[in-house]
């Protein structure tokens, strides 16, 4: 679906990371965790392409003035990395944006009785909040949030408010334990008694490590990938990721925007 969205708020939540709340049509309320939107930051030709963002949260906006009807809204958590996101961060309440979405295939919520382990790195937490919100309804949920410094570990209190047990790790030790978030994940897995599912989103190196850990222990794992894409609807074929059987002789590419962005980690090709 393509729609014009009005910005309700746009604020820096940590140095370089922004959170934007915006209006959406009624149909958007059915967006599932892990889906994404393609946002056009302005009507000009530079930047030319839309930018993909994970859906951080979906809710209902009740306008402050009396008489106005409540309206669906959604949130994005984004990092300013270049021109497009820089322009996005300069927008204000009541500014309008052209949005395509919700797009792609989201997370499978798994079975209720198993423990859910969510692993997020930096802005990779973006699609994991809506996921946690759904998962806590039926399962025990633990979040492992990692980043380079404390500035890269975002919105932990939001997860805690859902009843998620949060662990954080930073490379410089400025928040939580010093080191990689996967070390905390491994320790938790060592204590695990019943069944579990892992969900991860973040830098490719982190996803690779999580996928390998899940494979060794034969734990189901879903990862959400980022892809550099032009269209978001499966036409440009820019955002493909190598599937598990991929080799130069037998190429096997998956389209991140339509077959993903969420994949079973075993479907994809990883480094050992």
């Amino acid at each position, binding site marked *: 679906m393509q729609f014009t969205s009005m910005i309700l708020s746009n604020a820096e939540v940590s140095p370089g990371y922004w959170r934007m709340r915006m209006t959406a049509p009624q149909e958007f309320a059915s967006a599932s965790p892990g889906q994404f939107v393609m946002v056009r930051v302005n009507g000009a030709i530079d930047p*030319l392409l839309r930018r993909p963002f994970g859906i951080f949260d979906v809710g209902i906006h009740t306008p402050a003035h009396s008489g106005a009807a409540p309206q669906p809204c959604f949130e994005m958590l984004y990092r300013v990395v270049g021109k497009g996101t820089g322009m996005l961060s300069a927008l204000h309440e009541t500014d309008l944006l052209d949005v395509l979405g919700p797009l792609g295939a989201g997370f499978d919520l798994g079975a209720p009785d198993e423990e859910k382990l969510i692993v997020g790195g930096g802005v990779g937490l973006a699609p994991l909040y809506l996921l946690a919100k759904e998962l806590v309804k039926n399962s025990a949920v633990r979040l492992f949030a990692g980043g380079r410094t404390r500035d890269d570990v975002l919105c932990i209190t939001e997860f805690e408010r859902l009843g998620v047990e949060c662990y954080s790790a930073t490379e410089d030790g400025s928040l939580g334990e010093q080191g990689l978030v996967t070390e905390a994940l491994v320790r938790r897995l060592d204590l695990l008694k019943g069944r579990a599912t892992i969900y991860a989103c973040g830098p490719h190196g982190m996803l690779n490590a999580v996928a390998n850990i899940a494979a060794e222990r034969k734990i189901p794992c879903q990862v959400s990938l980022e892809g550099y894409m*032009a269209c978001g609807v499966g*036409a440009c074929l820019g955002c493909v*990721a190598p599937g598990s059987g991929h080799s130069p002789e037998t190429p096997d590419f998956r389209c991140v925007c339509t077959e993903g962005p969420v994949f079973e980690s075993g479907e994809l090709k990883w480094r050992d």
Partner: protein
Amino acid sequence: MKPDMTVNCAGIRMRNPVMTASGTFGYGEEFAGYCDLESIGAFVTKGLSLKPRAGNPTPRIVETPGGMLNAIGLQNVGIDAFIAKKVPYIRSVKTPAIANFFGNTIDEYAEMARRLDEIHEVAGLEVNISCPNVKQGGIVFGTDPACAASVVSACRAVTKKPLIVKLSPNVTDVVAMAKACEDAGADCLSLINTLTGMAIDLNRRRPVLANVTGGFSGPAIKPIALRMVWQVAKAVKLPVIGIGGIMNATDALEFILAGATAVQVGTASFINPGAAQQIAEEMEAWLVANGVDDIKSLIGALEV
């Protein structure tokens, strides 16, 4: 009064001159819900080959000011899967579907043309002669007039369907290429394909694209495309389809003034999946506002 928007492009009768460009519109069905295919003139499939092709490693695309570079590597489902999985959708749409195709050798081009000729739902063929020819030591069919002519003759011999040849802009003399294709039996010429370009990541000291170079498209290339369409339209008797950076009705109408009978909307569909439909509607509105009762009266009407 509603203006007459219909055009006949080498026997392909279109309700208006707006088509979608190969490689930017999938096989049509990807855009259902965004673009009403029955509001545009025709659509062109992703480039097809005899065998499926997986394409290049990533990164495959990168944005540049006013444009983008792509090095997808002609990823496509192959002719067999096209017939089995994509043609049923095409059958359900009452808009001409043009099959874009390529081969590695002249024989492969001819075989593809023969296979596509048998598909009732395919209204016309668009030959992509801008892809590297591995077998002939890296010569590109699209940059050598004699080579291009042999591809076109081989295809012409096996199909009676309208045969469109998509020309590359990466040549010294596009008119020589156009004439060679006309003489070899093409029914129509479409231009321009992407311009070869490159982007560099200074900090990593590496090219951005895994393929090093890529095809440059988007609004930044429009002036070059307009110039080439104008030159070719003057020099050949065949109808010409204008392609290159068309983002709105103004751009499309400029190509028609330059001599194009129809236009293809490419990169714009990535940014706005309903672009082709909107451009067709805006063109009609422009004709109404300017008292033009037939789009055909604008073809080549540029006053120089």
